[in-house]
């Protein structure tokens, strides 16, 4: 039911590049950090919610049956059975959300600069372009790539691997 109501909306949002929110965000928040946070948030939220919904749908019905036999009330069913059961899909969603956010953050920094906004890698990239300095541009691109890969490898990959191994879903 949840999926029927929000599914198309969420999928639509996921397809929409969150950079598209930049103009709206600038109008609402001006050239402040709030704009950046908003764009990141809009980039990540569809993936995260999608991960959650997919997770809930994949919970084996037998888990509910066991929960009922054990005498779990609604709250316990949610916190002790449902949430642990969907944790891997949730982390998968976070991981995807991070990738989307990181991309849109860079784009946002290039499009919107000035005001009280902080100086970031995207800004560096934009300055490199303005100065026609290829070495700055390439360095920025490399760093952006590096940050993306490092976060992926050091944060998400180990968490995901651990979740899957403890559940016996991955060869350890």
């Amino acid at each position, binding site marked *: 039911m949840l999926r029927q109501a929000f599914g198309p909306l969420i999928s639509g949002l996921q397809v929409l590049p969150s950079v598209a929110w930049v103009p709206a965000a600038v109008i609402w928040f001006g050239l402040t950090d709030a704009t950046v946070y908003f764009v990141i948030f809009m980039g990540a939220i569809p993936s995260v919610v999608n991960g959650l919904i997919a997770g809930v749908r994949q919970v084996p019905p*037998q*888990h509910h*049956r*066991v929960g*009922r*036999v*054990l*005498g*779990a009330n609604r709250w*316990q069913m949610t916190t*002790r*059975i449902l949430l*642990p*059961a969907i*944790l891997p899909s949730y982390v998968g969603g976070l991981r995807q959300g991070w990738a989307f956010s990181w991309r849109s953050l860079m784009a946002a920094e290039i499009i919107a600069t000035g005001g009280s906004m902080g100086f970031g890698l995207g800004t560096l990239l934009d300055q490199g372009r303005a100065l026609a300095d290829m070495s700055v541009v390439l360095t920025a691109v490399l760093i952006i790539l590096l940050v993306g890969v490092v976060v992926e490898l050091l944060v998400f990959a180990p968490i995901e691997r651990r979740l899957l191994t*403890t*559940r*016996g*879903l991955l060869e350890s």
Partner: protein
Amino acid sequence: MNEAVVFDTVDKSFAEGPEVLSEVSFDIAEGEFVCLLGASGCGKSTLLSMIAQLERPTGGAIEVTEGGAAFMFQDASLFPWLTAEQNIMLALRLAEGRCQIRQRKVRRQRAAELLDLVRLSEHAHRRPHELSGGMRQRVALARALAQERPVLLMDEPFGALDAITRSLLHEELLRIWRTTGRTIVFVTHSVDEAVHLGQRVLLLSSRPGRIIGEWEVAEEDREGARRAVLVDEITERLRNEVGRHGGDTH
């Protein structure tokens, strides 16, 4: 004596499917040990699910004593993200109101006792996928006992065990049954096991499932010649019943 479970002309079918159980009636007294036999697919698990109120009957009425039933599922059904010990601790925690164990320390102690009972103390910290099938069944038994419910439903619980462990657990189960006065409904494919454990054996037919045989097992029927006669008689009936559908196995 009070009844723990009463089935009054219960019918059960799933969605469009054919009738699985038809006009099933029986009473199980408080503290009774009943074994249920029947061919594969005849509706034994379905019957237990209805006692546990996980499935509703499509006809007739079911009464279960207050406090309900603990269920040891055919496939163990442990939570894969919890260790053996944690699976049992969760059952204790969710049964808090019933067994009055409020402190974590006491729960841990009780879990250790139960693991010891099923001879798995050394494997307390393993997760289900790191245990063998028989070990998982034993954890499931410990978890079912942790629930402290008056009725215990066991769905082919000892199928995956070696003969020695099985007979150890038989004696342990009989001891628990005698000391706690629980009502036990035990599904099995083994006539020997049914006669060894049960005070009464019920035989279920297939498509639709009806009770087509019922035997009282007295103490003196559990040994020697009388036991052999009884086992033969039940086996014969079971064989006829399985044979009746032998041609259409899938």
